């Protein structure tokens, strides 16, 4: 019962905030709605029994990436920062116009129609069953997997993070006069 209530709340939070990210005109509000959508995805991970992934999602995305994006929005708040229109398809310079929204909705509708048949047949294509309570806590199992079987990917991801951070610091350094 509690899991179903958590699932419904997380699903509505995820979908509603994703729609709000799509239709709002202010980039600041868009970042805040993205934060709500990511929290909803973390709740969906919790209903799937993936506790470590849910906590990592909240720590990395909500605590790191969205804050970084808010900093980037505020640092690049030029002439496009304040939206000039309140309605959806009005004249806001950097947030898209009706042609780009039309193209995006058309591509989205085509993608949806091509995937509905796949979703209808997904229970026939795979032997779906619920492995629900097999992992009461996934933390120790994920730790053992990360240092035994997936140790090469683990080390490569640390190298990737080091390279990305050094590269970001070099790219965003102040310009020489």
């Amino acid at each position, binding site marked *: 019962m509690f899991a179903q209530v958590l699932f419904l709340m997380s699903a509505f939070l995820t979908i509603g905030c994703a729609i709000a990210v799509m239709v709002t005109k202010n980039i600041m509000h868009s970042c805040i709605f993205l934060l709500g959508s990511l929290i909803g995805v973390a709740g969906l991970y919790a209903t*799937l029994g993936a506790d*470590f992934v849910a906590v990592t999602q909240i720590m990395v995305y909500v605590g790191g990436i969205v804050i970084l994006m808010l900093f*980037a929005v505020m640092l690049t708040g*030029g002439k496009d920062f304040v939206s000039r229109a309140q309605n959806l398809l009005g004249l806001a310079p950097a947030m898209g116009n009706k042609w780009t929204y039309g193209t995006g909705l058309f591509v989205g509708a085509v993608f949806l129609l091509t995937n509905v048949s796949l*979703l209808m047949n997904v229970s026939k294509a795979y032997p779906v*069953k619920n492995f629900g309570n097999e992992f009461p806590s996934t933390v120790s199992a994920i730790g053992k997997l990360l240092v035994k079987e997936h140790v090469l990917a683990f080390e490569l*991801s640390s190298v990737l993070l080091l390279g*990305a951070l050094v590269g970001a610091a070099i*790219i965003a350094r102040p310009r020489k006069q």
Partner: protein
Amino acid sequence: MMGLTSYLVISLFLFITGLVVMISRKNIVAILLGIELILNAAALNFVAYSRYVTGNLDGHIFSLFIIVVAAAEAAVGLAIIIRFFQIKETIHIDEATQLRN
């Protein structure tokens, strides 16, 4: 209610929303927001299949690596955006036409 199909529907919806955001927006930060939505849809699919089809933890591991790669991508992308704003004084995507000023 909580089956594999419901998670797949939510994931498909997140993917389509991210796709529409990426195509329709002209702000570079908003395009990064769409990329984050698409990566979340992929990670949610991995965890849902890991519970309902395979039954082991490989989907969780893959989801964690997706989160790591998303963090690195956001850091480099935002650095590029800040550098671009220092040069062009705007973050409109149609202004990004050259590799150097």
